[in-house]
């Protein structure tokens, strides 16, 4: 008997680890779960069929076992999700669904399982409406453009976010609009360039056009009323246009490649690309642009991809008749060259100019192009030389982005730092741009004396004389500081937001009250006190 009891005890002692081992192993392979719901942050209603993607990070340094791959799941029709078979680790969940901003929930430590996780998705908005003429008739095929209005680097910028056409009932619908301010433009008839063979091809319904109209009914971008989009809002914005006789511009392309697609566009100041239909005969080069109401346009023909583009353009004024015999001579883009000289501060000796390679970028923004165009960008080689190839004919504004500051930018006697434009003529390389950068910054430190100014404050140094760029400083505990202020005269302001004021616009700054004047010299530090919020 005794011996058998011993055997049982041994058996129990032996089996106990066996029972425990699978249990531990099972847990590490994934015995935990996360469950929860996805809801609309505005209405609180469940969001069905949202995609839940999961990232897990376990303890340890082995990347093979540290980063955990987990199968994504869809929330069910009640917005509920269950993710099972998870190991003990820290997880983050991301939920997304069309019509909502993507959101995530991080730092979920498992072991034990987690329930009741709620992910709130913010619904996006929409703007719908109709375009009617003065008779109340719907206007079809109108190009509707939505521009997001926001302050970027101190300037109000209207960047095109969406574009749709009205249907035959004059209706349009823009969706997936993030919260923000939007301007709506009825730009013209929806446009494209059609190629044809033979003698000619007219465009249906091309005898009437209209002046572009911004919501709620102005022709000027500056007078447009932005629509304030809040999460999930569905805004109605009808537009009325005044139909008037439209005219055509006819002409011929020369020097084009008849085997490649050509795009013909009309640009108009304040509007960008005019929505106007065009036809072109690639063999003969004959073209026609339709739908143009009286005004001044830049007619442009383009072939090829950006960087290897051939282009021709010409200004055309349309009065009360068609314009004929416009000749467009295609020319390839040219090389724009620049050279960068940098003056580094040197201790105990006079500064010597050096050609710099890194941390300098030259951006060329086309002035007559569509809104917020992508710039042509170049950076210097080890000798400080910059080459930007394939720049098509046009007028360009130049920006230098550097770890120093641009002290002068000259091209053939033009001061590009003080509002001058770089003009690229067809087939002719412009003069080499000479850029001088310096890094002999001064410093500004300051305090806020206004106790009632509020919690979120910014200090702004606005240059007087417009060569330097504005400097913004976050106010922390009533103090602010910048050690990278280009020498010069400034006016300092206290602001409670940088998103609502065009702080780089001299006209806006001139109307501000409550600033302090200061002069910053190279290598020196200036202290100021801002006593009140700028008004």
């Amino acid at each position, binding site marked *: 008997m005794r011996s058998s009891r011993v055997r049982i005890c041994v058996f129990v002692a032996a089996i106990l680890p066996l029972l425990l081992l699978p249990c531990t192993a099972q847990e590490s392979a994934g015995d935990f779960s996360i469950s929860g719901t996805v809801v609309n942050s505005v209405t609180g209603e469940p969001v069905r069929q949202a995609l839940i993607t999961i990232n897990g990070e376990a303890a340890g340094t082995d990347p093979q076992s540290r980063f955990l791959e987990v199968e994504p799941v869809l929330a069910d029709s009640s917005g509920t999700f269950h993710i099972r078979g998870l190991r003990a680790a820290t997880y983050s969940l991301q939920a997304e669904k069309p019509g909502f901003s993507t959101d995530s929930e991080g730092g979920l430590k498992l072991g034990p399982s987690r329930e009741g996780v709620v992910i709130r998705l913010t619904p996006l908005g929409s703007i719908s409406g109709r375009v009617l003429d003065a008779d109340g008739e719907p206007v079809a095929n109108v190009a509707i453009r939505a521009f997001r209005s926001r302050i970027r680097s101190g300037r109000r910028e209207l960047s095109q976010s969406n574009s749709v056409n009205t249907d*035959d009932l004059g209706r349009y619908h823009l969706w997936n609009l993030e919260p923000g301010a939007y301007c709506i433009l009825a730009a013209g008839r929806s446009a494209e360039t059609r190629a044809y*063979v033979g003698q000619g091809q007219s465009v249906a319904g091309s005898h009437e056009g209209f002046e572009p109209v911004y919501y709620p009914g102005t022709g000027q971008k500056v007078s447009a009323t932005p629509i304030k989009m809040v999460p999930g809002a569905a805004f109605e914005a009808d537009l009325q246009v005044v139909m008037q006789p439209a005219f055509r511009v006819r002409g011929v392309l020369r020097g084009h490649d008849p085997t490649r697609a050509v795009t013909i566009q009309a640009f108009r100041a304040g509007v960008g690309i005019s929505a106007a239909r065009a036809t072109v005969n690639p063999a003969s080069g004959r073209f026609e642009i339709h739908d143009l109401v009286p005004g001044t346009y830049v007619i442009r023909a383009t072939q090829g991809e950006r960087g290897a583009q051939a282009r021709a353009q010409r200004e055309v004024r349309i009065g009360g008749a068609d314009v004929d015999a416009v000749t467009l001579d295609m020319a390839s883009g040219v090389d724009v060259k620049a050279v960068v000289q940098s003056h580094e501060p040197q201790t105990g000796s006079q500064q010597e100019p050096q050609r710099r390679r890194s941390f300098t970028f030259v951006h060329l923004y086309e002035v007559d192009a569509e809104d917020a165009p992508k710039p042509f960008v170049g950076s210097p080689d080890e000798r400080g030389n910059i080459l930007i190839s394939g720049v098509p004919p046009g007028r360009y504004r130049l920006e230098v982005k550097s770890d120093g500051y641009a002290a002068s930018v000259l091209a053939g006697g033009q001061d590009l730092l003080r509002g001058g434009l770089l003009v690229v003529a067809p087939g002719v390389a412009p003069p080499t741009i000479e850029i001088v950068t310096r890094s002999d910054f001064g410093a500004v430190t300051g305090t806020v004396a206004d106790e009632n100014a509020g919690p979120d404050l910014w200090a702004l140094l606005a240059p007087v004389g417009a060569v330097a760029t504005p400097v913004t400083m976050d106010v922390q505990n009533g103090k602010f500081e910048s050690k990278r202020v280009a020498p010069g005269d400034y006016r300092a302001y206290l602001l409670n937001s940088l998103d609502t004021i065009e702080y780089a616009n001299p006209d806006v700054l001139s109307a501000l009250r409550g600033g302090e004047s200061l002069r910053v010299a190279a290598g020196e530090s200036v202290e100021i006190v801002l006593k009140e919020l700028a008004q």
Partner: protein
Amino acid sequence: MTSRPSALAVLAALAFAWSGRCQDAPPRTYTVGGVVVNPGGAPAKRVRVSIAPVENPAREIGITTGEDGRFRFADLRAGKYALRADTPAGVRQAFLGTSGTGFGVAIVAGDGQRTEDLIFRLVPRAAIHGKIVDQGGDPVEQASVQLFRSSILAGRRRVHLYSYAYSDDRGEYRFAGLPPGTWYLLASGRPWYTERLETQPASPLARMGYPSTFYPGTRDPRGAAPLRLQAGQDLAADLTLVAMPGGNLEIVISGESSEPAYVQVTFEGVAGARSFERSETIQSEAQLGGLPPGRYKVQATATDAGRWSFAEETVQVGAGDSKLELNLTKAPAISGVVTFDGLSAVPPGTVIILRDEETGTTGGLEVSGDGQFHIEAIPRGSYHLAIADASSMRPFGIRRLLIDGAPAKSQLLEISKSARLDVSATRGGSVSGYAFRKDAPVAGALVVLAPRTDSTNPFDYEAFQTDSDGSFEFHNVAPGDYVAFAVEDLDDFEYANPEAVRPRMKSGQPVRVENGQDQKIRLELE
């Protein structure tokens, strides 16, 4: 039978004509006018009415109607005029044009013609709209909705892709400005979440797709229901797409291009019409996920420094993974020369037209003054060839065709490699006349000039919608034996289909066309 006049005779005739002009009164002029009315019969304002001589469309003049809808073009010489209206909504309509057939009825100005009080009735356009939802009733955004039309194209009934659209965030789509007729609808796409899972292709969710679904809800093209659209109708056609796992097709691009290739994946839809399943731009390789099992044609096109290259393969996709290699090769180039019998130069505006036999896709290129042409790249396939006048698109007769110096057996070109064509065209003869019913001229009837022996080339058949005085005219007809007849079912008659034409030819009128000959005939409508 007429013979070619001698130069002396021409000079004499010109001198006679000139002296006649000096002595006679100014030529009589005529007026074309009337009222444009909307479908309800009320005068239509702000409609641009244009008129142009049929033989010279560039001499177009136009006026815009006022409140009374009236238009009037005075001081017109006797002749045939194309009359059309452009509505403020951007819809163009030819006078008595009804169904988008491409035909129109010219107004004949002249003695005895009543052209001053025309009623130009606008025909309302129709629309097809609807909503695409998934099996849970959620709207499907970015569903590809393809609209196919069944109509007579170049004399043959074809079902062809007419337009396509993408659904919006509400799942809604709309095709407007449609002529009445028979239509088919197809929707396809992928669940929105598959795009987010491109980096996790092994995920079961990443393999989901919406199989192409024909209205009213079938994957089988034979089960597709026609949408019969009436003029002015606004027809609703909703579709439900059901997500299901599909196969993954890995596509590897190789060959003669370093540029990305545009790849189209198509399948055979209603009546053989190619229907689009997917299109992608692929640099060297890509995986197309969620393809419903089936047989697909995959075509790749790339252009590299102006050089076009193509590749095409057919692939059977199952539920698992498949792989397809597409080797891009330089597309064939077609060059050559067009000459005309008796002419030292080709007529201005002469174009060479190639029509893909399978898809019906037609491309054209203007030939230079000396007749030379060069098509840099053309996809391999079978093409019908025509030489035509670009303004009227009337084909000239083709007397002889040499391919790389050897006589061609037909005008159906099998293009698999670059070739040189020598095309000898002829202005041929003319056939004109009037269509009558019980001694009254019939406007708007369809007169067909069909080759006496069956032909598979649609360019061998010609058709003309009779003008306001019942007249018709065929120019540039290649010499040969034909049969002419008139029918009234303009919208449905396959005038280039030998099967459809043959029974009508029995009661038609035989016509022999010879070079330079101008024949007048009279046709009776039953």
